């Protein structure tokens, strides 16, 4: 049987039966879209591959819970996006500032005794150092709030409708419209600021 000719729902049904080739075909179809979304969300190639891998493993292990009334792409994007958002939150928590010594007699001493721990996988200049995400639009994208970024990427890169984006992000369609419009407006300002 030629699995490449089957649609996503048929592949998911065969994957439910445990067919390895069905899993592999689904992976072949969605590895680039999912990785692209996750990479642009977490903005670190190595971390993005880890998150995308976790998303696929989680989805494949839960293939029985996939509801064929919805697109498979929406389902896998929802899982991947949620994992990327979780990882972004975790990255924020990984940066810890330990307050300066309470015995400091001046502000300078307090500053000197303050310790800031930053996660090893996050550097402030990461955006510009990363060649793949180094052009203007990619850099501007990195400054958007995560929910704006997801909505804009799903709309423009993946070509999803507003309804599909709403389903993936689990928010109302009106909210998606707001996310996308505000995201684009911020991008426009950032791009104008970069060229000025």
């Amino acid at each position, binding site marked *: 049987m030629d699995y490449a000719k089957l649609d996503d729902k048929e592949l998911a049904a065969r994957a439910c039966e445990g067919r390895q080739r069905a899993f592999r075909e689904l*992976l072949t179809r969605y590895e680039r879209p999912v990785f692209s979304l996750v990479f642009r969300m977490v903005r670190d190639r190595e971390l993005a591959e880890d998150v*995308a891998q976790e998303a696929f493993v989680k989805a494949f292990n839960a293939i029985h819970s996939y509801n064929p009334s919805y697109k498979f792409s929406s389902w896998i994007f929802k899982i991947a996006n949620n994992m990327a958002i979780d990882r972004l939150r975790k990255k924020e928590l990984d940066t810890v500032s330990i307050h300066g010594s309470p015995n400091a007699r001046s502000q300078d001493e307090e500053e000197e005794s303050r310790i800031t721990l930053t996660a090893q996988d996050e550097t402030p200049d990461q955006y510009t150092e990363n060649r793949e995400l180094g052009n203007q639009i990619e850099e501007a994208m990195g400054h958007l709030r995560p929910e704006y970024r997801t909505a*804009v990427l799903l709309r423009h890169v993946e070509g999803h409708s507003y309804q599909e984006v709403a389903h993936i992000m689990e928010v109302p369609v009106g909210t998606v419209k707001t996310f996308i419009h505000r995201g684009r407006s911020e991008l426009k300002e950032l791009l104008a600021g970069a060229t000025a």
Partner: protein
Amino acid sequence: MNTSNEHLTSETLQAFLEGELTQEDRAPVETHLASCSRCASELEAWELLFSELDELPGLEPSVDFADRVMAEIPARPSLARRMADRVRSTLGHGVDQAEEHLGPDRIQELLEGALGTRDRRRAHAHLHACEDCQTVYREWEGVFQSLNALPRLEPSPEFQERVMAAFQTSRAPARTDSGLERVMGWLTAAGNAAERLIPTTRKGWSFLGAMASVPALLIVAVVGAVLAHPLLSWGGLATLLRWRVAEGVETLMGQAVQRLVDSPLLLSIWDGVSALAATPTLALAGLGAAWTLSFLAMWVLYRNVFHPSSLAGRHV
């Protein structure tokens, strides 16, 4: 709409109070309210809020408020001017310079093709006449082009193998495409297909019930037609059935006895017993062994069923 098991949402309660529910939707809500104190008390709270809102007094503006507002309203343009504006608006040619500029949302909708025909025509008319908006529109076009040109990024070449390896280690061994597992796969697929046939709406269940009752009705009709014959009665049918069953049992028993008598096994057992009877020592030893085995079986039964010993305190 809530089912009778779920609590009513605030939207349903408000629609209920405002009389916006249809008769069909209203009945289950009333049923639920009669049996759910939580929703009933929430309904009371909404009623209180509604009555308080209804009782809010109308506040009076100052005496000269109307005059001041009217003074701000420009005089109505002449009939000729109004007709000319109407024609311009309908045909979409030209635009009044005083018309509002296109906002970011409008421009984005225009670029996405999300505006209706009339709004699109108006927006284009404004763009045609307004240089400021043309500049902004071009900037937006640039943003859209940049976004639409964003490529999908490639993961590393070994990504797929990594995912499949991680997936394999995270689950039980995969099924192959052969033998019993293939049959199980078909059964699972058939189960999934059957699950999809289960109705989810009241209409669906009604249709399924009607379809399922057709064979039952047919059987009842056939039985009725048969029993309508004057020579047939329930008692007669029962007697016939009893005869048939007795005849069948008798035949089966006869066949079983005949096979037993004809079987070489029975003959071998008879020969064995005859040989044992010929040697009394061997017969006694056999009886002793049978008695010992029976005693052991009884002891095992007693220790495990009638008086089991506790396992507590023993090591595994």
